[in-house]
């Protein structure tokens, strides 16, 4: 059987994804992440720095991979970002969540929604009804099937990156991709 050391994305980057960066970039970095995971918090800062460094050469995609059993607020945080996405504000919410990783309960989420200019009432209702639960679950399953093995998991041009995600290692891998 084929080994599973270098699995590839089973769902290619497409219209349903949240994409930052130029369409015709040289390299695509996909992250499966959890907003409550401290390692993802580290990765957030590193990716920001790499985006700055690489500019238009890099396209960055974020997919949800909430580890609900380990992180009780991760699921709602992921749904919050999806609710924001429906108003074109995914990245604003994504950033605010990672900058406030220790305060992600529902009340906190509502505060962030207001801060980025979402309708607070509608946001609360969407969170309550689990409007984007299915979308989050779809991301999660696509991750499992693609060989996501923990958070964060990175894929460079569709292939799982097994190296360390410190700034230099990740930048090197992207520049040599």
């Amino acid at each position, binding site marked *: *059987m084929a*080994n*599973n*050391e270098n*699995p590839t994305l089973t769902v290619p980057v497409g219209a349903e994804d949240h994409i930052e960066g130029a369409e015709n970039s040289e390299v695509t970095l996909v992250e499966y992440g959890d907003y409550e995971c401290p390692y993802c918090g580290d990765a957030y800062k590193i990716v920001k720095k790499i985006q700055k460094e690489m500019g238009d050469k890099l396209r960055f995609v974020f997919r949800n991979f909430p*580890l*609900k*059993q*380990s992180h009780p607020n991760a699921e709602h945080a992921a749904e919050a970002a999806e609710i924001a996405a429906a108003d074109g504000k995914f990245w604003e919410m994504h950033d605010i969540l990672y900058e406030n990783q220790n305060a992600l309960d529902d009340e906190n989420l509502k505060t962030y929604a207001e801060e980025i200019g979402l309708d607070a009432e509608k946001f609360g209702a969407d969170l309550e009804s689990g409007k984007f639960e299915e979308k989050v679950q779809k991301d999660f399953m696509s991750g*499992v*099937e*693609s*060989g*996501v*093995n*923990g*958070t964060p998991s990175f894929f460079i041009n569709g292939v799982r990156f*097994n190296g360390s995600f410190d700034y230099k290692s990740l930048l090197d891998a992207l520049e040599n991709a």
Partner: protein
Amino acid sequence: MSEILKAGEKAPDFTLPCRAVEAAGDEEPTFLLKNMRGKNVVLAFYPADWSAVCGDQLALYNELLPMFEKQNAELFGISVDSEFSHEAFRKDRGYKMMLLSDFEPKGEVSKKYGVYRDEDGFSERALFVIDKDGVIRYSYVSPIDVNPGADQILKTLKEIQGEEGEKENGK
């Protein structure tokens, strides 16, 4: 190290402690592979409790337990740690799966499956999917520092369950 057992081979039977004894004098709770016939079994051998990579690996499996259940499968972690370490580790991380102690004689089951690292004194990071008749359907040793994820486990389980469906349909 001996060779890892391969798909198609019979999974060697074993009995291991699966939980710490709660009160002095109680009989030690044990797990018998043989008792799992009729159900698919996933064995996840890992080097040690508490280390970062296996933490993540088991956290992922903990998340996927309902999906394994849907494929008529149960997952068990195995390492050479004692059941007391396992118990504390499970509680600390909130893991729901059973963790088996390949502790005494140390690594005996890991050796039977060909996944013991003599030079280190612990198990490889290895996966086995065993079908309901006790036959190994998938085996894999991952580089020790790479968490192998769950994609191949789920793929194998789906294949097994697919065959089951065909049998039931009289094909």
